[in-house]
């Protein structure tokens, strides 16, 4: 054992370990760790890999369901039975910290990493989504981040060849320093053809495949587990560099090698590289490994053992192969011109031994490194922040009703959070794969054709961070509900959830209070919709410096959901289809402008509670709309969300440039009627021939519904007053992001 590189508590602290963690390592090893070993523990016990400050609460999320083929945490991604012999692997992951300092590579490798999580299980990715949060759109930094994040996602995903079918882009100054970049991938695999991230069978060879290993991304996992500060740009070497071409080859080779039947287990290399994949696979299979680091193909000479172990170079996999069948595996990777090199073998026991030029450089028990094993688990204290009760003091009556609501309407359509995201979306290939059914019928969710079946897969990603900031419990429940609502409006049934939990520093009790309550709200909603959480990712330490003060970002528990459409003829778009169709609001209009874009930006009032939300009401609403779509009673469906009813009506009208003529409800304030964001509302249009059927069905439910008016002409007519032609309003809505990014 090489102990010449002595390591002590100061070194441990520099690597991000706590003093008690250092003591625990000494206890596990029964001796002082050397520098290489300390590096291994520092990444494996980092927040990013160990979930040490979140796992206790994450375990409280509902994780069981009839369709689940793997429980949360068991595999690289969740696995859901779709019927017809198919299963769906899906997951969302953050790449916030790298994107904050190197947006192009940060975002690109986020896309690469999440796709590897899917195909390492044997599933072919068929759809991608992303959820992006940036700072004040006026800032040059925001424009720089947006430009290169979008380019990074596009360049990587377009070449890799998986369509983007959904996503969100959100702006708020709390994200000025620290954007949130979450990427989700959805893949399909024949049931029973999946591969586990497991290592077993003494003597089985261990191969590294794909790209060579370089110095990029060393300590990336540790970097992702600390606050972003002014000095963070010094950590650019912690950012990995992506190569989508290698990823595409790796995808094809991986799916092909699984077919040989010679693979025992496989795991991609993301955070903590060789360290993480060798230890997690070994711990899961309850075996050890001997690894010869000098055999790893390197990009540059003279890399130290810890650098090889910790490198987060992209587009690599670790594969354990059945002894005697090595040639079959080598042939596949040779065909695709990829590295495939044996770097070790499976051993008895559970000890990982890493050698460099015949010298043992580190020796650690696999179990001691991993989540669910020896990795620390902490209880964090939490405390309700003062702002929470202050928010509740808000009263709508204190807000003057704006005189000219037409001006407000144009203002709202001109808000970056509301306006069209076309500038972003056009840079992504949304159609490769010829499966995206929501290209020509714009739907609230992405709809993906499951070729060869009657079914379609639906997917959506959502979170209104402002609601979660205002009330983490309600906000997180709303995030789940809205994602489910998107799937229901498009003609599907919600099935399962993946989440990306983006929060500030967990050692801040107020941040941790946001985290705990978000989990509770999410759990309650997921139980109600019977959408178990199949996995995901936690990203703490997201904060910005505002006016010299460090503030946590808005808590953003981003929900990614999949759903199923049993009959793809049920696909339902947001757009009005025919003049004369009746427009109905299903759900109740309320005197509520809490947390709305209108209150926040027009009135500049930033303290209010989350909008009205009742989970039971939401559930009933979705049940009714599911039935209306199944029975083909409605022509279109679009949920009321950010910006309120006016934005929903406008977006439905814009699709086919058909106007509307509606009347408001005099029992509530007109600004609340048009721009309030109270939850559980869906706008549908009904052909006059189906009116009776519609009314009978809607009346048999407990949900209120009202006839707003009808599809007519080319204007937005409200109480007989024109708010503008749809074409003119669309000109505002369509160009906001373009004008921000490419001003004339």
């Amino acid at each position: 054992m090489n102990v010449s590189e002595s390591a002590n508590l100061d070194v441990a602290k520099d690597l991000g370990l706590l003093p008690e963690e250092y003591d625990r390592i000494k206890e596990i090893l029964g001796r002082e760790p050397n520098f290489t070993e300390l590096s291994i523990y520092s990444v494996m016990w980092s927040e990013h890999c160990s979930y040490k400050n979140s796992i206790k609460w994450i375990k409280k999320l509902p994780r069981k369901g009839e369709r689940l083929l793997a429980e949360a945490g068991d595999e690289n991604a969740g696995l859901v039975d779709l019927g017809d012999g198919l299963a769906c692997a899906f997951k969302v992951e953050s790449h916030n910290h790298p994107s904050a300092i190197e947006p192009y590579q940060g975002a690109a490798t986020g896309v690469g990493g999440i796709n590897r999580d899917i195909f390492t299980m044997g599933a072919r990715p068929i759809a991608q989504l992303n959820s992006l949060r940036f700072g004040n759109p006026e800032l040059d930094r925001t424009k720089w981040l947006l430009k290169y994040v979008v380019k990074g996602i596009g360049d990587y995903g377009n070449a890799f060849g998986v369509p983007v079918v959904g996503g969100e882009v959100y702006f708020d100054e709390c994200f000025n320093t620290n954007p949130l970049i979450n990427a989700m991938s959805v893949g399909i695999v024949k049931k029973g053809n999946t591969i586990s991230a497991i290592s077993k069978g003494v003597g089985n060879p261990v191969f590294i495949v794909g790209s060579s290993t370089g110095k990029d991304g060393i300590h990336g996992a540790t970097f992702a587990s600390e606050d972003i500060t002014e000095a963070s740009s010094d950590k650019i070497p912690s950012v990995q560099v992506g190569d989508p071409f290698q990823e595409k080859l790796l995808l094809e080779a991986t799916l092909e090698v699984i077919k040989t039947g010679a693979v025992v287990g496989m795991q991609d290399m993301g955070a903590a590289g060789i360290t993480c994949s060798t230890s997690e696979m070994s711990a899961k299979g309850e075996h050890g490994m001997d690894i010869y680091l000098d055999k790893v193909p390197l990009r540059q000479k003279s890399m130290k053992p810890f650098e090889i172990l910790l490198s987060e170079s992209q587009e690599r996999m670790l594969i354990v192969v059945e002894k005697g069948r090595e040639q079959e595996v080598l042939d596949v990777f040779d065909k695709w011109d990829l590295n495939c090199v044996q770097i070790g073998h499976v051993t008895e026991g559970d000890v990982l031994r890493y050698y460099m030029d015949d010298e043992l450089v580190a020796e650690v028990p696999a179990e001691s490194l991993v989540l669910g094993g020896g990795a620390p688990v902490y209880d964090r204290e939490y405390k309700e922040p003062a702002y929470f009760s202050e928010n509740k003091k808000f009263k709508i009556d204190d807000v003057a009703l704006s005189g000219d609501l037409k001006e407000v309407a144009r203002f709202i359509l001109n808000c970056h959070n509301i306006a069209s995201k076309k500038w972003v979306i056009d840079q992504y290939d949304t159609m490769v794969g010829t499966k995206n059914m929501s290209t020509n019928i714009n739907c609230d969710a992405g709809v993906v054709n499951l070729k060869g079946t009657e079914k379609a897969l639906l997917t959506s990603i959502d979170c209104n961070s402002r609601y979660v900031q205002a009330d983490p419990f309600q906000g997180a429940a709303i995030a789940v509900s809205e994602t489910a609502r998107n799937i229901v409006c498009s003609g599907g049934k919600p099935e399962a959830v993946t989440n990306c939990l983006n929060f500030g520093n967990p050692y801040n009790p107020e941040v941790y209070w946001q985290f705990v309550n978000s989990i509770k709200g999410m759990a309650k909603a997921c139980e109600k919709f019977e959408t178990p959480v199949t996995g995901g990712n936690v990203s703490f330490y997201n904060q910005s410096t505002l006016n010299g003060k460090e503030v946590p970002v808005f808590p953003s528990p981003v929900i990614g959901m999949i759903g199923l459409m049993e009959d793809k003829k049920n696909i339902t778009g947001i757009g009005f289809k025919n003049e004369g169709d009746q427009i109905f609001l299903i759900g109740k209009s309320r005197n509520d402008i809490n947390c709305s874009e209108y209150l926040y930006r027009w009135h500049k009032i930033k303290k209010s509670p989350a909008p009205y939300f009742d989970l039971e009401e939401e559930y009933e609403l979705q049940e009714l709309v599911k039935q209306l779509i199944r029975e083909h009673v409605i022509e279109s469906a679009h949920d009321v969300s950010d910006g309120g009813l006016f934005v929903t009506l406008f977006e439905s009208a814009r699709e086919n440039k058909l106007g509307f003529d509606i009347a408001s409800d005099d029992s509530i304030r007109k600004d609340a009627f048009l721009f309030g964001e109270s939850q559980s509302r869906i706008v549908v249009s009904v052909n006059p021939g189906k009116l009776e059927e519609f009314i009978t069905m809607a009346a048999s439910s407990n949900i209120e519904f009202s006839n707003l008016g009808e599809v007519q002409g080319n204007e937005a007519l409200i109480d007989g007053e024109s708010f503008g032609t749809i074409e003119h309003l669309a000109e505002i809505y369509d160009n906001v992001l373009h004008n921000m990014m490419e001003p004339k």
Partner: protein
Amino acid sequence: MKFGVVVFPGSNCDHDMIYVLKKIFNQEVVPLWHKDRDLQNCEFIFLPGGFSYGDYLRSGAIARFSPIMEEVIKFANNGGFVIGICNGFQILCEAHLLPGALLHNDNHKFICRNSYIIPQTKQSITTSSLDQDQPLKIPIAHGEGKYFAKDDVVKKLNDNEQVLFRYCDKYGKITPESNPNGSVENIAGVCNEQRNVIGMMPHPERAADENLQNVDGKVIFESVFKEIENRVISR
């Protein structure tokens, strides 16, 4: 008729093209691996879209040197039909089987959206049965799709009716606004002088499945099948 779809490393529309030929049109189709030299008696070759060899250096620049392309070039020079879509078009230009080049889009961004194109001639297998007044809604998805050729080359293309499609608006009018990428004279697709090698940036295979609610691309394939059938009969 047996179709071959070349699979380069980095091709990502190969599956889509095979799906459309096989499942939508019931044609015999085989993938052709880039390292092979055997065209497997295919009578018609498609070069699909994607990022062959990562499109490093320049789109299509490396793919033209692959073993299969040597055979495709011979096949084309002997009068065999070759159609390149998107990256396939770029490869055909790099291989000098088609005139001109595809440059970075004017806005220097990748563009993916539905575009409209209008057939310009009946003198090609892809356009012979198309209505020249009927614009087609066909998706584009490219970063380097700006067609460029020198003035004298463009003049020759026009004189010989080698321009097969131009970008237009949804009414079929060829306008600067409907040109998505800055292509010279809105050119979206061309053929060679012998008219057996065809390249186009828009993806007709993305507009051929009824499940996607846009089947404007079907007529292009149908035109090809009909023309081939006629030629077989008259042979």
